[in-house]
């Protein structure tokens, strides 16, 4: 365990850490110690560790650049085993006891990485080099690609499933405030005091924003007391208000339509592992009446030669490590800036006991209070100078400085070497306008500051604080308070006109905008000026892209990959377009930004998936008799969300053994099928019959009460949509059945036509699919079985004919019994209220024992109906088939209009040689055609072969002791009797085309 060599003195830099609470952690195999309140990055810095990772393309050594979500470099592989996570920003990973992390994208180690060979070869690897090479020989790309793939990528995915839990929730509020810095706190206070329901979120563990870390916050005074005291009082007030929700560790990552926002809360990432039932992360799906964006600003680097060495970091972050975490980023920190804020950082560091090697300021006439304060402390200020190079193999150890020429285009004079062990740079601050832009807010370019600011927006949102370009604490507080009050008012509350929290104003001198800091060598001809640290994009790459014509900012991004890393260019994007503007002599405002997209920072797949995985991935729908099927050892089939028994194997039986037994039982004894999943719709109203006339292809007006009829529905394009049997219960009352998959779809379809097209028809529809459990019994003994269980119905074939319905009490249970048949056998579909489904089934099974009652599953059902040539919509049809194609002309009314009728007479749809339903018999009765087999008239030794259609259904029929099949075949009706072929990968099968009816074509069996 090493001691914390770079931890600052508690008196000079107390920070927000708990020095009484040490935590141990391991980085790259070595043990260290930090304190509660540290991030991994601050703890590493406290231990003097700067080299954290390797860059994406050139594998250059990289250190910590920032202190928050903007970090491009310090990405680590966090944790090990099933909880390992790649690409975690060390700057946001809170330290916990036992944390283990390692560097990524380096081999064998971060200190000595073989991939660094790319850096040596970098001269032939400029932006987009891969588009120009690796083309020969043509077959070799897959080889080159393999090498590229191995070199690319950053961290490693875990090998094992994620053991953690993820939650999601919806939330609603009057005012959402994003960012809990001074502006956000003031906004939340104002809105909450007005009585609004407020949500305040901040991506950091502790709320307070720059008050915790920025020189303009930490030492400041608000309403006469230390800023942090004010903040904790504000947070206390908010926490005690039951209509305020405080969400620390919560990133607002997406701003969607109509003020829908997405927030990711890291509930348990700061502990070794979540408690039982505690989610690791939680997704908040929030609908806000108003939004206040107080997301602050992100400091930007300076683009100077070799600006990527470990130890070179943002000045504000260097100050944050000192003041928030009590950690010194170096012992001799050189400050390089174009604006005043880095002076404040330097002063804060100096006062905390960090040596300052000097301040190099691009501005020739540095003046003003911060400059005077620095000079007063004896810090050397080099005004009008620039850093032209840096030195140090794995950490910066010196910088070279030269004087800038007047235009800032070149350097002159002697070179000064300045020894240092860290460089704190500042190129100004970019307002964090990401969410604002996601919300389609327009940006406005401020040429003086070289930044993009929120422009005008008509959205239900406001922007406040540094995110809006307010740099002084006082202005941030005032903007926040005003925005919060206005948001509450807009949401219907009355805000008290209390004065905003006040803080001293202190204005800065203007910054000097230099997109690229020149060095003594031409750009790209010595050293590298990095713009995008993670993806190794340099200023020279941008020049190259422009030369090659990739001048649109979007082309530039894609050609160079600038801004496409895990940080999405939070540091480099504005520089990239600034340089682009400079090279193309355009206005940065005209060049524009690339598109801001969700998420603001990367969000876990697991977080987005929530609990919709594993057992809860999708509802499992089961019928009232499901428990019986399970106990009987049924094998289930997924039909949509339903679990249906596929077959009921007895010990030692295969699928085919079981199905053969089941189909025989249904034709010789009695079989029983759970048909509960069929869709059922109760249709009532004086115009119900007319409504059915328009929906179904056949006519319904004359159907007698108590009788049933089979019908087809088409879509308006004439293609079969669903089918089923509908029964007339009373003059204006029908019971419709649909396919299992069609249940919901058909009801919606009926509702749509009734409500939108024919509101004059008096008809009401109600789904009763699940009101009724259905047992279908089929077979010669079906009537005897019913008689045995008792029905109170006259079962005589005349009294209760085929296609009729009777009400009775089956086995003492109130029932509707339908004499309809999907098997062609004597068959009854017994509907009972679902609560009695199990009782009915058990009664039938008990009474059926003497008849050898045999439960059968969907496979046997399919065989039985195929033996009869009954089609299954969705299997024998596919959305391109009309009722006429199925040979069902009889069901298509000539007399009346119905949905889809007109389409049937279109040129192509009326053709006589369309694909039509036929039966197929293989020459060899043992051979079962594969479903989906394609049919040809003429066999060729090799594909291609012209296809006529395909096998839609195919089974071995134990009842016929041979195979049978249904197929859609071009001009099939005319081919009956002809021989065709089904060529498969490994053999060809010869078939004969037959009528699609294999058993009992006259339909005698259904009468028993």
């Amino acid at each position: 365990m090493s001691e914390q060599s770079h931890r600052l003195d508690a008196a000079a830099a107390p920070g927000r850490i708990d020095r009484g609470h040490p935590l141990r952690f391991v980085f790259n195999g070595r043990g260290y110690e930090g304190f509660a309140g540290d991030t991994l990055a601050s703890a590493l810095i406290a231990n003097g560790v700067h080299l954290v990772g390797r860059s994406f393309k050139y594998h250059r050594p990289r250190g910590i650049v920032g202190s928050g979500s903007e970090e491009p470099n310090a990405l680590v592989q966090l944790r090990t085993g099933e909880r390992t996570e790649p690409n975690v920003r060390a700057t946001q990973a809170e330290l916990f006891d036992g944390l283990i992390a390692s560097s990524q994208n380096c081999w064998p180690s971060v200190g000595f990485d073989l991939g660094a060979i790319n850096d040596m070869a970098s001269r032939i690897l400029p932006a987009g080099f891969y588009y120009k090479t690796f083309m020969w020989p043509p077959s070799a790309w897959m080889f080159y690609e393999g090498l590229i793939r191995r070199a690319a990528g950053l961290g490693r995915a875990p090998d094992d499933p994620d053991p953690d839990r993820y939650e999601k929730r919806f939330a609603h509020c009057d005012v959402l405030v994003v960012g809990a810095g001074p502006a956000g706190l003031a906004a939340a206070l104002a809105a909450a005091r007005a009585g609004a329901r407020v949500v305040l979120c901040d991506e950091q563990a502790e709320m307070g924003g720059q008050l915790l870390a920025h020189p303009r916050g930490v030492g400041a005074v608000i309403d006469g007391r230390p800023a942090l005291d004010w903040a904790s009082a504000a947070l206390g007030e908010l926490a005690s208000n039951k209509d305020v929700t405080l969400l620390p560790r919560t990133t607002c990552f997406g701003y969607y339509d109509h003020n829908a926002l997405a927030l990711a809360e890291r509930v348990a990432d700061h502990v070794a592992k979540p408690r039982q039932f505690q989610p690791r992360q939680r997704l908040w799906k929030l609908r806000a009446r108003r939004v206040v964006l107080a997301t602050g600003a992100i400091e930007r680097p300076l683009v100077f030669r070799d600006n990527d060495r470990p130890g070179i970091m943002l000045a504000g972050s260097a100050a944050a490590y000192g003041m928030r975490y009590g950690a010194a980023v170096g012992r001799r920190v050189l400050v390089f800036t174009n604006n005043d804020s880095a002076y404040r950082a330097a002063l804060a560091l100096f006062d905390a006991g960090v040596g300052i090697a000097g301040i190099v300021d691009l501005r020739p006439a540095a003046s003003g209070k911060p400059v005077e304060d620095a000079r007063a402390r004896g810090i050397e200020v080099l005004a009008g100078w620039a850093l032209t190079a840096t030195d140090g193999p794995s950490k910066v150890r010196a910088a070279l400085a030269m004087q800038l020429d007047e235009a800032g285009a070149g350097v002159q004079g002697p070179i000064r070497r300045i020894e240092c062990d860290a460089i704190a740079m500042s190129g100004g601050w970019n307002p964090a306008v990401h969410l604002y832009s996601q919300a389609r807010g327009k940006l406005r370019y401020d040429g003086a500051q070289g930044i993009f600011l929120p422009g005008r927006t008509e959205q239900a949102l406001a922007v406040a604080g540094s995110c809006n370009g307010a740099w002084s604490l006082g202005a941030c507080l005032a903007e926040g308070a005003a925005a919060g009050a206005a948001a509450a008012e807009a949401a219907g509350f009355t805000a008290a006109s209390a004065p905003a929290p006040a803080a001293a104003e202190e204005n800065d001198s203007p910054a000097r905008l230099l997109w690229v800091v020149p060095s003594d060598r031409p750009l790209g001809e010595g050293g590298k000026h990095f713009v995008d640290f993670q993806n190794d994009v340099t200023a020279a790459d941008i020049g190259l892209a422009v030369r090659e014509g990739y001048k649109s900012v979007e082309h530039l991004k894609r050609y160079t990959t600038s801004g496409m890393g895990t940080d999405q260019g939070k540091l480099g994007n504005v520089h990239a377009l600034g340089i682009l503007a400079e090279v193309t002599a355009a206005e940065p405002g005209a060049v524009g930004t690339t598109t801001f997209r969700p998420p603001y920072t990367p969000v876990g797949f697991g977080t987005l998936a929530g609990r919709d995985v594993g057992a809860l991935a999708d509802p499992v729908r089961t019928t009232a008799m499901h428990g019986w099927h399970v106990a009987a050892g049924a094998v289930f089939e997924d039909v949509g969300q339903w679990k249906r028994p596929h077959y009921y194997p007895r010990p030692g039986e295969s699928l085919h053994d079981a199905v053969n037994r089941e189909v025989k039982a249904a034709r010789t004894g009695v079989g029983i099928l759970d048909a509960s999943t069929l869709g059922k719709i109760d249709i009532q109203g004086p115009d119900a019959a007319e409504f059915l006339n328009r929906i179904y292809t056949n006519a319904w007006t004359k159907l007698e009460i108590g009788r049933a009829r089979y019908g087809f529905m088409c879509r308006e394009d004439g293609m079969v949509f669903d089918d089923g049997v509908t029964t007339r219960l009373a003059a204006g009352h029908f019971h419709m059945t649909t396919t299992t998959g069609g249940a919901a779809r058909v009801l919606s379809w009926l509702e749509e036509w009734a409500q939108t097209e024919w509101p004059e028809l008096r008809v009401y529809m109600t789904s009763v699919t699940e009101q009724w459990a259905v047992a279908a019994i089929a077979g010669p003994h079906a009537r005897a079985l019913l008689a045995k269980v008792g029905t109170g119905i006259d079962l005589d074939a005349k009294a209760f004919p085929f296609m009729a319905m009777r009400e009775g009490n089956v086995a003492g249970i109130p029932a509707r019994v339908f004499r309809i048949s999907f098997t062609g056998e004597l068959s009854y579909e017994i509907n009972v209220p679902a609560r009695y489904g199990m009782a009915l089934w058990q009664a039938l099974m008990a009474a059926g024992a003497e008849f050898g009652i045999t439960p059968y599953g969907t496979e046997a059902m399919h065989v039985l109906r195929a033996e009869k040539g009954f089609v299954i919509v969705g299997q024998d049809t596919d959305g391109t088939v009309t009722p006429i194609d199925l040979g069902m002309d009889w069901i298509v009314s000539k007399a009346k209009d119905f949905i889809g009728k007109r389409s049937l007479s279109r040129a192509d749809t009326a053709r006589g040689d369309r694909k039509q339903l036929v039966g197929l018999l293989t020459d060899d009765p043992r051979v079962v055609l594969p479903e989906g087999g394609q049919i040809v008239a003429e066999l060729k030794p090799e594909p291609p072969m012209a296809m006529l259609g395909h096998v839609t259904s195919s089974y071995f029929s134990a009842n016929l002791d041979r195979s049978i099949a249904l197929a859609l075949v071009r001009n099939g009706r005319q081919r009956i009797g002809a021989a065709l072929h089904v060529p498969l990968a490994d053999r060809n099968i010869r078939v004969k085309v037959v009528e699609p009816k294999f058993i009992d074509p006259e339909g005698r069996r259904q009468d028993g």
Partner: protein
Amino acid sequence: MPAARYSIFSLLRNAATYHREWQAAWRSPDPKPAYDVIIVGGGGHGLATAYYLAKEHRISNVAVLEKGWLGGGNTGRNTTIVRSNYLWDESAHLYEHSLKLWESLSQELNFNVMFSPRGVLNLAHNLHDLRELQRRVNAIRLNGIDSEILTTAQVKAMVPILNCSPNIRYPVLGASLQRRGGVARHDAVAWGFARGADALGVDIIQNCEVTGIRREGDRVVGVETTRGFIGAAKIGCVAAGHSSVLASMAGLRLPIESHPLQALVSEPIKPILHTVVMSAAVHVYVSQSDKGELVIGAGIDAFNSYAQRGSLPIIEEIMASACVLFPMFSRLKMLRSWAGIVDVCPDASPIISGTPVKGLYFNCGWGTGGFKATPGSGWVFAHTLAQDRPHPLNAAFSLERFTSGALIDEHGAAAVAH
């Protein structure tokens, strides 16, 4: 005219001069007053059309007018899946023609489009899926295109990270595989065709939006643009999601609705997925790019939209499916999500066709799946424009089919047609 060929040698040569000597990949000329043919839309299809017009038909007095930046439409925002395993003959022939062009496209264009035939798997999760896969595989094979069925064990061997447990909600029961399918680098396709077309004399004009189509009687004479009127007797509109907007400029309506289709990428990780995996039933399709991100396609938002943005529930849905199929994805992170505007036809097949207005042609309706067709689509459309009649490969993809009813319904079994 930039003649410099790209190669490792040219890279080395240019390294010596610090890459200062590279020329623009294409010129940026001002529009001429008139062209023989105007292509509206600088996506992959439009640029390919121009390229093949010049290359195959020697018509190089051609302008490609693009309202924004080349490839900024769906070409630049798709999940780059390339395959030709389509059900119907018409589709299979068209996409297969395209796939053949892909196989030598980098060499043809002297621009590495990184076509990577790493195999495309389509998973089956229930018996219905399996039956449909069989149907497709048989049809595709008989059309002379490679396609095979894999068992669950074979799928597992090919994609070890896939959850092939029988105990998940929708287990993997098998898959179809097209080995010649894969992915390609989307941007490179646009840039490569642009560079190729430019070298043959085509004018590529960016930031030039077509705002009107000028007709004289029943024929077109040119287009109004944000850079003024440009004349042409033949106009080919290849504007994907904006096709209806262009059609309305000529007083036409199309059987097209525009919807946002989303996609997303994860942060880059070391290689874990070496093929393309698609599942229509649970709505997920995923591959891993050469940079290491997982590229994942989501569904369309149901409503018409011209905003290139989608909604979060679609992303939640896809992530749940992805985590069910690939449980170790759960701790990876979504880096960026976006949307394109797709032009959806009722039968999920494209329209490559003349119109009732003489000289006006449309190539659209590619919806969620036209990237794979880019070279083939340009090739047949160039033929159609040059000869004033369709090539046999695109004859069936006419506007007329909506009147006759001869649709090419690729919805049937595919559900998602990427």
